[in-house]
């Protein structure tokens, strides 16, 4: 399989933008300047990057509590993310939502919300809208292994299937739902298989290999665009940070129960280091191409922080804004 250099570099850039943006929250989280709950996706960037490379602004995406990557990969702005994490007016939700409520309708990112599995049916609704409108756009719902415990996933799989909706179920399986390892929450850890009885084609793939993600998603998007959805993708991955915040064992109640060896093992599979190595080893790109992007993204993140620093905090006089679009006097 041959890929254009610019394409490969754009995948790299997307992943790096997510990583650098998120890592820029570590210090402010630890010193308390960032206060809202922040669920970092570090280590899982390849999934959103690989999938979003196939999507257009017409395609709709819904996220969850861990959606910085989904938002940025779909084209949400770095300043919009950083501003929201700092709960400033410059944030994509004007400081009303915080890290768990990201949105960029202009690029098809229709929202993220932390009620586990809560946006699966919404993404299905977006897919339904596309079908009714006769558009070939697709919808993507991102959810974790934990969300597979909620009944709504199964209701949505059935309905999407009987309606042939252009909906891509994307399960980011990182083996844990907060303090619960997957073996304590399911007898079989093969989540993708639960879509099979609904007649939904499903694939499980390495979620830390951005090209594998891309290829798996390519088939899913193609089928969905041609009226042959839905599709179920399960990506195996691992978070390199805490469930919430930088490190669950430094903060709060010391709740990270993951074995240190396991974390160390997965650290070696960091999707960004891995992809960079692959690009250089296969001579697909040169070191200087990488350096240019590294510097560029670093600058972009720094500029976004500057913009956010200069942004106002929400004014308490505007507490009532956004309750309704049309306020009845």
């Amino acid at each position, binding site marked *: 399989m041959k890929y254009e250099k610019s394409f490969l570099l754009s995948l790299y850039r997307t992943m790096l933008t997510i990583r650098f943006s998120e890592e820029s929250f570590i210090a402010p989280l630890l010193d308390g300047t960032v206060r809202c709950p922040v669920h970092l996706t570090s280590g899982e960037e390849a999934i959103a990057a690989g999938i979003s490379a196939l999507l257009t602004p017409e395609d709709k995406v819904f996220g969850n509590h861990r959606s910085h990557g989904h938002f940025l990969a779909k084209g949400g702005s770095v300043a919009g993310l950083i501003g929201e994490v700092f709960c400033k007016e410059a944030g994509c939700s004007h400081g*009303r939502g*915080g890290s768990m409520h990201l949105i960029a309708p202009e690029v098809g990112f229709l929202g993220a919300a932390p009620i586990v599995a809560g946006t699966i049916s919404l993404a299905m609704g977006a897919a339904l809208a596309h079908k009714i409108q006769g558009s070939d756009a697709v919808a993507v719902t991102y959810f974790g292994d934990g969300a597979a415990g909620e009944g709504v996933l199964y209701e949505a799989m059935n309905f999407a299937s009987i309606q042939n909706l252009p909906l891509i179920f994307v399960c980011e399986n990182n083996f844990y*739902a907060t303090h619960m390892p997957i073996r304590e929450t399911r007898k079989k850890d093969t989540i993708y298989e639960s879509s099979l009885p609904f007649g939904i084609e499903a694939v499980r793939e390495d979620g830390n290999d951005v090209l594998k993600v891309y290829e798996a998603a390519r088939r899913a998007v193609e089928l969905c665009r041609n009226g042959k959805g839905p599709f179920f993708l399960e990506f195996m991955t691992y978070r390199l940070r805490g469930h919430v915040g930088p490190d669950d064992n430094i903060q709060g109640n010391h709740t990270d129960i993951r074995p240190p060896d396991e974390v160390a093992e997965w650290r070696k599979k960091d999707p960004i280091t891995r992809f960079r190595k692959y690009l250089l080893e296969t001579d697909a790109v040169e070191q200087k191409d990488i350096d240019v992007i590294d510097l560029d993204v670093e600058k972009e993140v720094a500029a976004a922080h500057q913009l956010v620093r200069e942004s106002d905090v929400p004014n308490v006089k505007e507490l009532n804004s956004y309750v309704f679009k049309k306020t009845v006097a």
Partner: protein
Amino acid sequence: MSSKKRLLNYALAINEALSQSMAADDSVFLIGQGLKSPWYVGQTCTGLLKDFGEQRIMDTPVSENAVTGAAVGASIAGMKGIVVHPRVDFMLYGLDPVINQAANWYYMNGGKASVPVVIWGIINRGGEQGAQHSQAIHSLFAHIPGLKVVMPATPYDAKGLMAAAINDPDPVVFMDDRWLYGIEDYVPEELYEVEIGRAAVSRKGDNITIVASSYVAYEAMRAADQLKKEGINVEVVDLRTIKPLDKNTILQSAAKTGKLLVVDGGWQSFGVSAEIAALAAEHIFSDLDMPVKRLALPDIPAPASQHLEKGYYIHCDTIKSVVLEMLD
């Protein structure tokens, strides 16, 4: 055996009620997502797994609807189930087993089977958590016939109301607030119950009556203590039970002081504060020397930004200034 002078915090008071109730009655069990993790439930479940085992203490997958139904069904079948939701926001997936099933079961089956279940929902807000991690929906449950709703404000009541909820033959919604978890008070060591349906006059006074519950009752008591130093005597009625309401205690106090301020940690419209204001209008209108005043959350989703949170939540100072306005 009992030492009256034992300090215990609110979370550990709940813990003790659970632990002692389970020791006293084999039919009591606890189920819910997150109960193994202090990140979810604070200290309320500390030690329970060790003492009672996985047979009776079950952390679950993220499946609120099924898990709530499990507690309800087991309670119909002879157990006393307690289902914990570490945030009331999460329990919205589990409303059907509570509102359609548990609340109606005894009535629609002509009294053949009651549902001695406890639906325990923890209010957990502030800290820029935003609209889906901040809600207080006790009024919603209080609206439903067939549900009892309790909301302790003190460690003493937390223990006694949890124990009472567990032993009550009907479905009881027990709501506590993470903002209260660290508060300490004297709590008897032995198991005891606080009667459901009884408010407490937690501060005596004759200038004005404040009716409140849960965290805002705590804030109201602080306000009353501070105002006392300024020579203002506030009577605080801590509801403890939202439903059934202790009408007599509320109305007697308000009729005595002639001034009624209702404070509620839920939204203002169609909630607890409206219910109490209506009761006062119906029963003691002529005893009041001014209109009832309500202080509750504005009809706005919970904001994330701390600057908006400050204007949103109710604290001691907000209560004090409203009292001073009313007495002006």
